[in-house]
């Protein structure tokens, strides 16, 4: 460590950090272990993967910058996007049939509500499953885990009948309410709290006279914060990209963003310039969020998240 500290004095904080990182990396793999540093082949292949991942999004920009005429005659109208895409954005946003702004607001309302609700309900249940003892606990937990494998999406028809009985067709609560709880979320929080929340803390709170809910709110919830943030992120992405159930129950007049994409397609048939500009616009909010919290998303998946 002395050399790292020295690097800090000689070459500034950045260099010290880099040195520390390098050292940590070397230690993590053990010097001279079988895991070698990446050669240019590794970087080349990874670069290729990134290219494949990014190109489809770049392609929407290319088509959005072009026009219908050109696109119908060539696969790649140009290699660089230009500012003409801005007018296409304006067209998409101002179109009444697409309902872009309404779709954006709806998507935000649904995703935020569901993410918060799932985090709260899952942490509550996870606290109960992980840290409290009562008859029937283990059986109930097994039941929760088993439900993760049930394809509940196949219950759409009775759900639709139910929603029309209570006049919820076309309303946001028809999408939100069924999504408020998640078996995966309960399982995830249970696992996390089991290891992250020491019994001593709960006991101390109880001795101090805190009620059960107070114990949950002041002790368990703060302890669960890292896992809760990841869970919230997953639920947000899942709701934001969801299509099947919203398209059944909401319809095109009260759309979410994925339904707006469908509206675009129905409205413009072959005008791929406009459609692709719209597709990019619909994807953009999540890309921005990803740029900020992508690191947590990666950590969450690597910590054992499963497909939602």
């Amino acid at each position, binding site marked *: 460590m002395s050399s790292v500290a020295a690097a800090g004095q000689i070459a500034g904080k950045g260099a010290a950090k880099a040195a520390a990182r390098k050292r940590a990396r070397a230690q993590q*793999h053990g010097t001279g272990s079988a*895991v070698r540093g990446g050669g240019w082949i590794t970087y080349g292949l990874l670069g290729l993967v990134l290219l494949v991942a990014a190109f489809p*999004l770049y392609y929407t920009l290319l088509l959005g910058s072009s026009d219908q005429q050109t696109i119908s005659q060539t696969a790649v109208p140009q290699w660089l996007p230009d500012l003409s895409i801005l007018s296409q954005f304006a067209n998409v946003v101002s179109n009444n049939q697409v309902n872009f702004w309404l779709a954006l607001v709806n998507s935000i309302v649904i995703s935020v509500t569901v993410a918060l609700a799932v985090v709260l309900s899952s942490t*509550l249940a996870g606290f109960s499953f992980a840290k409290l003892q009562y008859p029937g606990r283990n059986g109930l937990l097994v039941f929760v885990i088993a439900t993760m494998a049930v394809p509940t999406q196949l219950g759409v028809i009775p759900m639709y009948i139910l929603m029309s009985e209570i006049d919820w067709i076309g309303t946001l609560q028809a999408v939100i309410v069924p999504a408020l709880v998640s078996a995966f979320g309960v399982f995830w929080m249970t696992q996390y709290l089991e290891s992250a929340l020491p019994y001593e803390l709960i006991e101390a709170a109880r001795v101090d006279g805190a009620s059960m809910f107070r114990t949950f709110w002041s002790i368990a919830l703060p302890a669960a914060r890292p896992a809760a943030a990841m869970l919230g992120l997953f639920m947000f992405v899942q709701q934001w990209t969801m299509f099947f159930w919203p398209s*059944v129950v909401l319809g095109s007049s009260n759309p979410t963003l*994925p339904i707006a*994409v469908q509206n675009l397609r129905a409205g413009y048939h072959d005008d791929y310039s406009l459609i692709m500009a719209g597709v990019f616009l619909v994807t953009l909010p999540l890309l921005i969020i990803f740029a900020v919290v992508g690191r947590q998303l990666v950590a969450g998946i690597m910590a054992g998240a499963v497909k939602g």
Partner: protein
Amino acid sequence: MAALTTTEPPAGSTAPPPRAPRKLGFSQTLSRWDVKVSPYLYISPFFVLFALTGLFPLVYTAVVSMYEWNLLGGQGEFVGLQNYADVLGRGGFWHSLVNTFSIFLLSSVPQVILAVVIAALLDRNIRAATFWRMGVLVPYVVAPVAVSMIFGRLFADQYGLINDLIGVFGIDPIGWHSDRWSSHLAIATMVNYRWTGYNALIFLAAMQAVPRDLYEAATIDGAGPWRQFFSVTVPQIRSTIIFVVLTSVIGGLQIFDEPRMFDVHGRGGGDQQWMTTVLYLYDTAWGTQRDLGRGAAVAWLLFVIILIVGVINFLITQRISSSGPRAPKVSRAVTRRLRAEARAAGAAAAARRAAAVRSASENTTTDRRDS
């Protein structure tokens, strides 16, 4: 049996009998109830909502499937298994099932292989690891609907980029929309695009949990990188591979978004080339037939199929994980002979090594003398 038994006094500690029995105050009664009821209260939101929006609809699907039930007209008369007979009698259901399984196989197999390879690349000691990990995850945040629109264009039959690309290699343009199996490949590519990076990160996490001394041992035994990958890495992450395959079965057989948006009409193509079963369910219930009863029959059939596939998967998994690393049975005589051979070889190698060391030291001495 209350929660947090440790906060209660141990059974024996209330022993001194002369003290008058304490009257429980209201707040204490409340507190006792709090301890007893709270655990159930906290898990109740999940169970109540799951029962209402998950379990009930699934079970009630079976009821709806027994009735004539029109989208607009509502519940009609009881028809027994007529809806099932209708669904199974028409070719559409079987056709969609074949499409679903075809797309599923085309997406899951290459996806798992590619994800493992990408994970192995990410597992190397690379710079800016977080950057690369985030990079492979980008497709995950693109909605399937958007992916389908973009790839629908990339895989266009005319002036599509993919056809242009394969044209460079002298391959004739492929009818990605018009040809049945080609359209499956195109749709499977969309699924792969969105999920490969995600699964790669799951595999990466599993790979990083592999004890590093296994690799050291393999290196000492003279295994190259490829041999290490196949003989150490892959067996070590086997359970994770099984897990990813299992989840992709449940999801893959319910594919809807991608085929729905693959063309303008969303009806699985002119000849239902890429009509999947959930798309067929949608089309039956809300599309052309507007028949909720028949749609429910499709849903229930698919549910049973997923259940069967899931159980088969589970059984295979059990077998794989219980058999452990394959160790072929050998007779004792063979073992004895092999051991003798190994001992002889070891002795020979030791002799060789000793000779090599001796000659090396002789060389160094001559070198020194030269300098």
